[in-house]
C-alpha cells in the first residue's frame, strides 16, 4: 500500500501530519513542532532537492533531509 509522506510533497503542496514511522526521529520532529494534525507545506528545497524546507503549521520554516521527511506520514 502506498503511504504518502512529506518527501512526496511537491513545492507549494500541503499535507496534514498523520503519524511517524521512526520512533527516534519522531521525538525530534515532535519537539520541533511537527505534531499529528498539524498542516505542513513544502516551501522549497536546497540545490539537488535535499534537504527540503518545510513550513510547519504556518509558524516557521524547518529544514530537514529527504530521509527525515520520509518518516512523516501525511494525508
Amino acid at each position: 500500500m502506498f503511504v504518502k509522506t512529506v518527501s512526496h510533497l511537491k513545492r507549494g503542496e500541503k499535507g496534514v501530519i498523520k503519524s511517524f514511522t521512526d520512533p527516534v526521529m519522531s521525538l525530534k520532529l515532535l519537539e520541533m513542532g511537527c505534531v499529528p494534525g498539524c498542516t505542513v507545506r513544502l516551501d522549497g528545497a536546497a540545490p539537488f532537492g535535499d534537504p527540503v524546507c518545510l513550513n510547519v503549521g504556518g509558524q516557521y520554516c524547518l529544514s530537514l533531509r529527504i530521509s527525515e521527511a520520509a518518516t512523516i506520514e501525511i494525508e
Partner: protein
Amino acid sequence: MKDKSIKIALVGNPNAGKSTLFNSLTGLRQKTGNFPGVTVDKKFGKLTLEKAGAASVEVMAVDLPGTYSVYPKSADEAVVMDILANPAHPDYPDVVLVVVDGSNLLRNLLLFTQIQDLGLPTVLALNMLDVAQNMNLKVNAVQLAMNLGVPVVNINARTGSGIPQLKEALLHVIEHFEPASPRFFYDTTADYPDLINEVKREYKIDNDYLAMQYVCQHDNFTFVEIPERVKLDGIIEKHQFDKQAFLSAETIGRYEKLRPLVAKVVKSEGEIEQPYWTRLLDRIFLHPVGGYFSFAAVLILVFQAIFAWASYPMDLIDEGTANTIAWVKNVLPEGVLSDLLTDGIMAGIGGVIIFIPQIAILFALVAILEESGYMARVMIIMDKLMRKFGLNGRSVVPLISGVACAVPAIMTTRSINSRYERLLTILVTPLMSCSARLPIYAILIALVVPATKVLGIFNLQGLVLFGLYLLGLIGALASAWVISLFVPRKEPSYFMLEMPSYKLPRWGHVGMSMYESVRSFVLEAGKIIVAISIVLWVLASYGPGDRMDRAEERVTASMTNAAPDQVDAAVASTRLENSYAGSFGHFIEPAIRPLGYDWKIGIALLASFAAREVFVGTMATIYSISGDSEDVLTVKQRLQQEINPETGQPMYNTAVGTSLLMFYVFAMMCMSTIAVVYRETRGWKWPMIQLVYMMALAYVSAFIAYQLLS
C-alpha cells in the same frame, strides 16, 4: 556548595531572543566562564530587581544554552538539565525565566510546560510579538497567564520594552513562590506509578516529573555517579520501562493540551508567510547556481579579509614585538635571565598575539553570517555534499573557521547535534590550513616555485598556495570519509534545522563572539605556545656537558678575521648544533632522510612540533642568519645558498621543498589543538588517534612527493 545570592536562569528555544534579553537585562555587567565540570561557555551577569515601595534586590542571571525541550540533542543543551535537575548545583536557579517566541507559541510552550512541571518557579517572557504582529497574530498575555498559572510579561528584547515589568514579576515570584504545586501540566504519575515511586524513594525526590528525568536521562547528569546510573538502569529494567514510547507519549500529550490553549490565546488573521525579504533572498541563496555562486563569493570575501586586511595589524604587532624584545635586551644586563625573558617568554607571547587579528576578523565575519541567518542557508546547501563524507551541513562552520585557527574552530563543533558527526568534524578540522601554516607555505613556495605567470593572469606561486589550501580541504573530507568507514556510527545522522528569517546582525553579539574566540585562543593556545617556547629555548640553549662551549671556542678561533656580525651568527648556529635540540636533530635524521630532510630540518621539525609557526624562526637560527631573523626574504636567500654536501646541488630543490610543504599541510604540529581536542572529547583516545593518523598522512605524502620528484 550554593552561595546565598539569588539566581535567575534564562531558558528558551534557540532563536527566541534569549541572549538578546540577557544582554538587555545585564548590560555591561556580564561575564563569561565555564559551567563547572563541562566545557560549555557560561554567560552570567548581575542585575538589580526593584519595584515600587520595596527594597531592591541584587541577583545573578545565567544564560543557559537554547534548547527545544528538556531532552538534550547536543553537548551544549545537556547543560540545561544538568543544572535544572540538580538543586545542589552552584548555578541552580531560584527562578527560571523562560523566554518564549510569541510568533511560534505552540512549539515554544512545550519547553515551558516541561520546566514548570519540574516544580521550578517560573516567569514567562513573551518575546517577538512584533514578529507575530507582522504575521497577523495577536497573543493575549493575560489569558496565557491565567491558563498556565504563571506571570506572563510582554517584552521586546531588542528595544528593551517591558523589562521593568519583567523585573517586577521576577521579584514577585522570588518573594512569593509557594513550592510543591501538585498540579502537573502533563501528568506522568498515572502511567508509571510504581517506577516513579521507587525512584522518588531511592533518590529522595519530591517531584514526579523530576523522577522521570532521572529515569530518562541519568547518563547526561554529571551529578549522578556511575554506580547510581547502574542502579537506575536496574530499576528501569525491573519496571520494563520503554523510554522511546514514554518520550513520544509525553510530547504528544503536551501538545494535545497545548493546542486548544494556544487556539484560545492566539488570534490569527489570514495566511502566515515568511517575510518578503526572506523569501526573496532564499530564492537566490538556495538556488542551484546562485546559492553556490554566492557562497563562493562570501568565502572569497572571508579569505580576503583574513589575509589582506589582517596583514596590517599583524605587521604592526610583529614590528612591535621585535622592537620590544630589542629594547628589553638593551636595557637588561646580558645573561641567561635576559635571554629567557626575551627569546623564550616574550618571543612566545609575540607568537600568540600575532594571530589575534586573523582570528578576530574571521570570527566577527562568522558571527555576522550566523546572526544574519545566512549561515543556516550555507548548512542547507552544503549538507548533501558533507553527508557523502560522513559529516553534516553543520560541519561547514568549523571547517571554514579552521582556516584561521583550529582551536576556536573545534569549539564551534559543539552546535553539531550528532555526537558522531561532531567527533568526525573535530578529527578532520586541523587538516584545514590554519594561519600558522601560512608563513611556512610562504617561505617554501618562494623557495621552490618560480614567480611566473600562468595563462597570462595567474601568478604561479599564488596558484600553488591556493592548491595547498585545497589540498587541506580535500585531505579533511577524504579523512572524514575513511574514518567513517572504520568507526561505526552508533546513532542515526539527522539534520533538522530551524530556518530563521534574515535579520540585521546585532553588533553587540558580533563583538561578544569575536571577543570570546580571541579569549579562548589566547587562553587555550596561548598558554601552551608560551610554555613550549620556553622549553624550546632551554633545549636550544643548553647542551650535554660543555660541548656547546667547546664548539664555540673552535668557531671563534677559526674566524679571527671575519666581521663580528658573521662570527656571532656562526657561533649561534654552532651552539644550536651542539645543543640538546641539535642532538635530537641528528638523532632523528635517519627517520626523516627518506623525506629528503637533514638534521637541520630535523631541529626545525622538533621545534615546530608544538606550534608550527616556530618553523621559520628556527630555520633562521639554524642557518645563522643575523639581523631580522623573521624576515622571509633573508631566510629565503640564505636557504637558496645551502648546498647538499652529498650531491653538491642546492639543498632546497623542488623535491625537498614539495616534501616539506606536503608534510606541513597534513602534520598535526600543534599542541594547543591536541589540548583542545582532549578537552572536547574528554579523553586521550581521540587526540592520540588524530595525532597518529595526521602524522602518518604527513609522512607518507612527504615521502611520496620526495621520492617522485628527486
